[in-house]
C-alpha cells in the first residue's frame, strides 16, 4: 500500500496544526459557529445527537495493521471503545469531544491517518474495489489511480467550496464492486483499441433524495489525462452547479438539467483548456505510486492445498464460512477473505477496540499487514494462504467476527440512523438486528442465497437503500417510525434503483414484511435464480401481492 513520504506527512501535520488553531479560535469566539462549521466539516467533525462524530478517512479502503492498532487506541482513549465502518470505506467515532479532536488528529497523523475532507462540500474519499489487486477479473489495479486522485483532490484550492459534496469511485474490473454508477464521478478502467489503459468516465450518479444512475460522458479517456479531465468536470460543476437549494446542488441535478450531451460538451470544451496545463501527473510520479501496489511476495503454492481441503471436508461450519466468506484469488493457493462485521443480532459495521487489535494481528500474521474496508461495512484480508484459512477462521469465530454470512440475508448494510444521527427520521439499527435474528438459520440463509438488504434511517440514504435488492427507508409518520420498502436495487455494473413496492410498514410489522418479500422470492424463483434474478424477471407484482393481498 501507499506509504507517506515527507511531503505527505508534512501536509497532514500542517493540517492538524491549522485545525488546532481553528478550534482555539472557535472556543474563544473569534469564529462563529456558522463560520467554524464548514471548517470543522473539512476535518470530518460532525455534531450529532449525543456528541461530535469524527469520520476518519481510510483512503480507498486500505489500512495497515499499524493504522488499525491506532484506530483501536483512539477508540479506547478518546471514545467509548468502538468504531463504525461506513458505506464509503471510512470509520466513524461517535463520541468525540471538540476540544480533544486536535489531539486525536495529531495521534492519527503519527500513522499517516487523517480526517481531511471526509465531510463538507469538497471532494470526499475516493472509494474503490475491496478486491483490488487480487481478483481474477481485473483489467488493472485501480488503487494507484485512487492515490493519484486522493492527492490531487486534497486541499484543492479551486474545489474546496463546491455547491455540495462530491464523491468519486474507481473500479478496475468490469464486474463493479465499487458501485461506480452511483457516484458523482465513476471511473472504470479499460483497455483502449490499441491496448493502452484508460477510463470510461461516468458522471451524475447518486442516491440520496433523488437517486440516479450515472451516464457515460466519455467512453475512453487515456489514463495520462485523468486529472486534467477530472478538473474539467469539477470546474463545470463548481461554476454551474446550483447553490440556491441544497437538495438540488449535486452534480446529478446539473447533468439532468443540462442533459447528458450538453453536459458532456461543456466538459469537453473545458477540457480543451485544462489539458494544456500541467494538471496531470508525470509518468515518473505515476510509476512511483504504482510501485507501492505491486503484488506482495506471494509463495509459490502447490494446489490443491490438501490441508485446506481436509479441513473443509471435516468441519461443516468451516466449509460454510469458506463458501460464503472467501473469494477466489488470482494467485494459486491463496484466497480473499471477507471478515463479517454483521454478527447475528449485532450492529452492522461496528467493531470493538479489542477486535480491531485482533484483526491487526491477524493481518500482520497472515495477510502482509494489510486490511481493506468494504463499502458494505465489512473488512477484507486479501492475501490469505488457503492453508492458513482454518486457523484464521477459528480466531475470527473466537472474537465474534466469524459469521458466515457475506452476501447473504443477514449481511445487512445499515446507516447509524436515529440512534446516533441528527439527520435521521427513524432508527435503522434495531430493524437490521431484528431482520438478522429472523433469518439466523444456516439452511434458510443458504436457501435464500445472495441478497442485499440495505437500511437507511432517512431520505439522505447513507445506508444506500436505493441500491439494495431489498431497500428499507425509515420515515416519520405522524410522530411514529415507519418504513418504506423498495425492491430490485443493484449497485454493480447493472446498477438499478429500487422500486417502491407500496405503502410503508410500521416498526412492528416491517420485519414480517421483509420476510414476506423473501417468501415471495422463494415461491416464484425458477431454478437457481438469485433474488435479484427473480425480481428482474417477475417485476414487482408477486411481491406486491404477497405484501398487500390480491391486486
Amino acid at each position, binding site marked *: 500500500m501507499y506509504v507517506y513520504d515527507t511531503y505527505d506527512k508534512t501536509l497532514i501535520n500542517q493540517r492538524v496544526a491549522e485545525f488546532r488553531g481553528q478550534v482555539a479560535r472557535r472556543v474563544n469566539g473569534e469564529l462563529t459557529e456558522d*463560520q467554524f462549521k464548514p471548517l470543522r466539516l473539512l476535518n470530518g467533525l460532525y455534531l450529532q445527537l449525543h456528541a461530535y462524530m469524527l469520520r476518519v478517512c481510510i483512503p480507498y479502503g486500505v489500512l495497515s495493521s499499524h493504522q488499525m492498532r491506532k484506530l483501536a487506541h483512539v477508540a479506547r482513549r478518546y471514545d467509548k471503545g468502538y468504531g463504525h465502518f461506513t458505506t464509503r470505506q471510512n470509520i466513524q467515532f461517535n463520541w468525540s469531544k471538540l476540544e480533544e479532536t486536535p489531539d486525536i488528529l495529531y495521534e492519527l497523523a503519527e500513522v499517516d491517518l487523517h480526517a481531511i475532507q471526509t465531510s463538507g462540500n469538497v471532494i470526499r474519499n475516493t472509494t474503490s474495489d475491496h478486491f483490488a489487486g487480487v481478483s481474477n477479473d481485473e483489467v488493472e489495479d485501480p488503487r494507484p489511480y485512487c492515490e493519484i486522485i486522493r492527492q490531487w483532490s486534497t486541499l484543492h484550492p479551486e474545489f474546496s467550496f463546491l455547491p455540495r459534496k462530491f464523491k468519486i469511485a474507481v473500479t478496475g474490473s468490469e464486474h463493479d464492486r465499487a458501485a461506480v454508477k452511483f457516484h458523482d464521478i465513476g471511473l472504470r478502467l479499460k483497455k483502449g483499441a490499441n491496448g493502452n489503459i484508460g477510463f470510461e468516465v461516468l458522471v451524475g450518479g447518486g442516491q440520496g433524495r433523488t437517486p440516479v444512475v450515472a451516464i457515460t460522458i466519455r467512453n475512453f479517456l487515456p489514463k495520462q489525462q485523468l486529472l486534467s479531465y477530472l478538473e474539467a468536470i469539477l470546474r463545470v460543476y*463548481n461554476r454551474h452547479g446550483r447553490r440556491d437549494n441544497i437538495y438540488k446542488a449535486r452534480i446529478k441535478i446539473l447533468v439532468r438539467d443540462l442533459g447528458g450531451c450538453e453536459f458532456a460538451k461543456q466538459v469537453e470544451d473545458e477540457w480543451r483548456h485544462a489539458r494544456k496545463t500541467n*494538471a496531470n501527473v508525470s509518468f515518473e510520479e505515476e510509476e512511483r505510486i504504482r510501485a507501492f501496489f505491486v503484488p506482495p511476495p506471494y509463495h509459490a503454492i502447490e494446489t490443491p492445498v490438501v490441508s485446506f481441503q481436509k479441513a473443509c471436508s471435516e468441519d461443516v461450519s468451516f466449509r460454510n464460512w469458506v463458501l460464503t466468506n472467501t473469494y477466489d484469488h488470482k494467485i494459486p493457493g491463496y484466497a480473499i477473505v471477507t471478515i463479517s462485521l454483521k454478527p447475528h443480532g449485532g450492529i452492522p459495521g461496528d467493531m470493538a477496540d479489542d477486535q480491531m487489535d485482533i484483526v491487526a494481528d491477524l493481518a500482520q500474521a497472515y495477510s502482509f499487514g494489510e486490511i481493506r474496508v468494504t463499502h458494505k461495512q465489512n473488512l477484507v484480508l486479501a492475501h490469505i494462504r488457503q492453508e492458513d484459512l482454518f486457523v484464521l477462521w477459528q480466531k475470527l469465530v473466537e472474537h465474534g467476527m466469524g459469521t458466515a454470512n457475506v452476501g447473504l440475508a443477514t449481511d445487512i448494510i445499515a446507516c447509524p440512523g436515529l440512534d446516533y444521527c441528527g439527520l435521521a427520521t427513524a432508527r435503522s439499527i434495531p430493524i437490521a438486528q431484528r431482520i438478522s435474528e429472523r433469518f439466523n438459520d444456516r439452511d434458510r440463509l443458504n436457501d435464500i442465497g445472495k441478497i442485499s438488504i440495505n437500511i437507511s434511517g432517512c431520505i439522505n440514504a447513507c445506508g444506500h437503500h436505493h441500491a439494495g435488492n431489498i431497500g428499507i427507508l425509515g420515515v416519520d409518520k405522524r410522530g411514529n417510525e415507519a418504513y418504506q420498502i423498495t425492491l430490485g436495487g443493484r449497485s454493480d455494473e447493472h446498477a438499478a434503483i429500487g422500486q417502491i413496492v407500496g405503502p410503508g410498514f410500521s416498526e412492528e410489522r416491517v420485519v414480517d414484511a421483509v420476510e414476506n418479500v423473501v417468501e415471495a422470492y422463494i415461491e416464484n424463483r425458477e431454478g437457481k435464480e438469485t433474488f435479484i434474478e427473480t425480481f428482474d424477471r417477475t417485476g414487482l407484482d408477486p411481491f406486491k401481492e404477497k405484501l398487500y393481498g390480491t391486486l
Partner: protein
Amino acid sequence: MALYNSHGSLYDTWVWVSDEERVPSETSFIVSASRFLETAELLLTNRSPAGIWLANEDQIELIKPYVDKLKLIALEFPHFKDGRSFSVARILRERSGFEGELRAFGDLLPDQASFLVRSGFDTFEISEVFSQESVCKALNSYTVWYQFAADKKKTAPVLRHWLA
C-alpha cells in the same frame, strides 16, 4: 475591509465607485461589470486606471475583449461557502490574457487565504473583524501542495522528481 496579498497586509490604492457615482480622474477606480460594459470606451479613456468587479452571475465572456486594458478585476464571494470565483479566477489568470491585479472580495474567511492565492488572486479583502495575525497565519499554514494551480507553485508530485 482590509486588503492583503500573499505576503501580508497592503494599503489599498483603489476606490470602489457605485453605478451612480462619477468615476474619479486621479484615482484608480473599480466599477461594476455591468456599468463598465455599458460605457466601456468612456471609462477606458479616463485618466486613471479602470478596474471592474464581477458578480457570480456576470458573464466573463463579455469582459474578455477588454482584459488587456483593465488594470484590476475583482471577483465577488457573496458568501464564503460560494466557491465559484475560485474557478473564474483561474480562468482569468491562466488563459484570458489578463495581466492586471486579480482581487477577491466579499464574505471571506482568513482560512481561505492560501486557496485564494493559489487560485490566482493577487489580492484579497478580509473583514477587519479578523486580525491581521490570523490572515498571515493562514497564508503560511501550508508548505506542501499536491495539485497544479494558477500560482504555478512546484507541487509535491513535481518536487519528488525534481532533483532525481
